């Protein structure tokens, strides 16, 4: 989604302050906000020029992904669903993005990560793994399940359920 004319930082500050207001917290002024968002962008490896540009306008696939994670780290949601965050990212970008998500882990925050590959999970170690097939969860386990799945394929996971059902 590109939003011409709405600067990334302007939008993010409006969103953050709307959330802070709702939580009964003090709103951030432009200076404090900019300092905070610049710091976060740096840890994400996001080009600071992108902060002043309109939301997602002319962003590459990787930049859009990083921008989403930046939004997440600024807005600090209680529940985040990351749908194929790893697609289109090179190895370095993957590590940075995973690191940023990792840093957001907290006891009062749930993060659901949807991926097709084990690779992301090397950096972002899951507490719990669910395998979806044909629209439903076919099997669940800890992080070792993802490693086994990578080795044996989805067919194996689907078969495992049928065995269990039988």
């Amino acid at each position: 989604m590109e939003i011409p004319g709405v600067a990334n930082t302007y939008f993010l500050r409006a969103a953050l302050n709307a959330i802070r207001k709702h939580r009964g917290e003090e709103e951030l002024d432009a200076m404090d906000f900019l300092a905070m968002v610049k710091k976060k962008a740096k840890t994400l490896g996001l080009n600071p020029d992108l902060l002043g540009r309109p939301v997602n306008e002319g962003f590459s696939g990787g930049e859009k992904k990083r921008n989403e994670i930046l939004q997440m780290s600024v807005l600090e949601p209680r529940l985040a669903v990351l749908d194929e965050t790893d697609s289109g990212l090179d190895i370095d970008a993957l590590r940075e993005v995973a690191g940023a998500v990792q840093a957001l882990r907290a006891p009062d925050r749930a993060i659901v990560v949807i991926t097709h590959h084990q690779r992301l999970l090397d950096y972002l170690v899951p507490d719990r793994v669910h395998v979806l097939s044909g629209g439903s969860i076919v099997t669940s386990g800890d992080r070792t399940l993802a490693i086994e799945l990578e080795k044996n394929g989805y067919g194996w996971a689907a078969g495992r359920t049928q065995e269990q059902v039988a």
Partner: protein
Amino acid sequence: MNAAISTTDRHAYASGFAQALEQDTGLPAWLTSVRRTAFDDFLDQGWPTTKQEDWRFTDVTPITRLTMVPPPTGKPHFTPDHFTADLLGLGGEDSRRLLFVDGRYHSGAAKGRSRPDGVLATPISGALAEDTGTLGHVLGHHLRSQNAFVALNTAFLSDGAFIRIPAGFTSDSPIYLVFLASAEGSASFPRTVVWAGENSQATIVEIHLGADRRATLSNAVTEILLEPGARITHHGIQKASPDASHIGHLAVTQKAGSVYTGSSLALAGRLIRNDVHASLAEENCTCNLNGLYLASDTNHIDNHTTIDHRAPRSTSREVYKGVVEDRGRAIFSGRIVVRPAAQQTDARQTNRNIVLSDGAVVHSKPHLEIFANDVKCSHGATTGRLNAEALFYLRSRGIGEKEANQLLIRAFMLEGLDCVAEGVLRAQLERVLVKRIEELHGAPA
């Protein structure tokens, strides 16, 4: 056909006109005769009606009920509201600024009438009294249309601003002209005349304001002549009171290689009508026309523009954008004429509208009249709602509905400023525009 003026009205207007002539002492005899002719012309023409194509969507009946009695003489009394005060202060203390109240030069507010740089920025009343001869060179000579309102402005012409930029002079510091309509029930007829010498460069900001809740009519005419190579940037800002009307006529004449960049910010008013006529009389001219309008409540904002390409190799870019809401009405009629001689013309025109409520109405009428065969011309008009997906995106990040709307309206409008101004002036125009948007849609968190 125009509406014939009834005998009763004829008498009323004539007595108002006689009174005005009596009041305006010290003007040269030639002007009095020009004014008499114009007044007769107005009586002959009568008011335009909605049966005329150019006035199809704009009914001027409310204006015709106003008496043509000039506002009382003496120092006017007004208390500027918040917004007006802000606009009055545009440009800061050091800038060159002329203030007019109810069509008359308000002597207290002018600074730097004559400066060593040779730029003349003076009230017309003064220029006429001194009769330096230069004003007469431009005044009235470049008006391509003599509709009833132009005739009326000439008939009551007694004051306004005369700006003369000497050849070769360039300045980045804008000249501000502020016209305030304040006396209840009065009509004012300010005239602005700009004569930009060869290869000169200047910026002029023309602000028309209405004092809070006063019913007034300001019927303004602006004439701008650009000598070869001149570059003029001209910003018009209109914020009339909700009961006031503003009828503006802008005539631009461009000579070879000149560049005119004009923007119009129509922010409020019961009835606003802006006619722009740009004549690209010689070759290699550039004309940029930009308009932004916000029609809320029952505001009626009508922009009629004509860009007349008369000579080869000129370029015009026209972008008009607006947001219409409540029971507001916006009209855009953009005409581009390319004469047989105007080969290799490059003309583009865009009109974009956002409609926020069911009661709001937009009439958009782009039209090209092309009589040359080697040209590039395009036009486009869109009218729609705010982008639902963009709204969803913003709301899904926690931004409330009202604020998300405000954010998108702001983005849509501010984009229109990008190509007309930069630096301090851009920031000033943005502040004015944002302030008005916040008046209508609330301030962001």
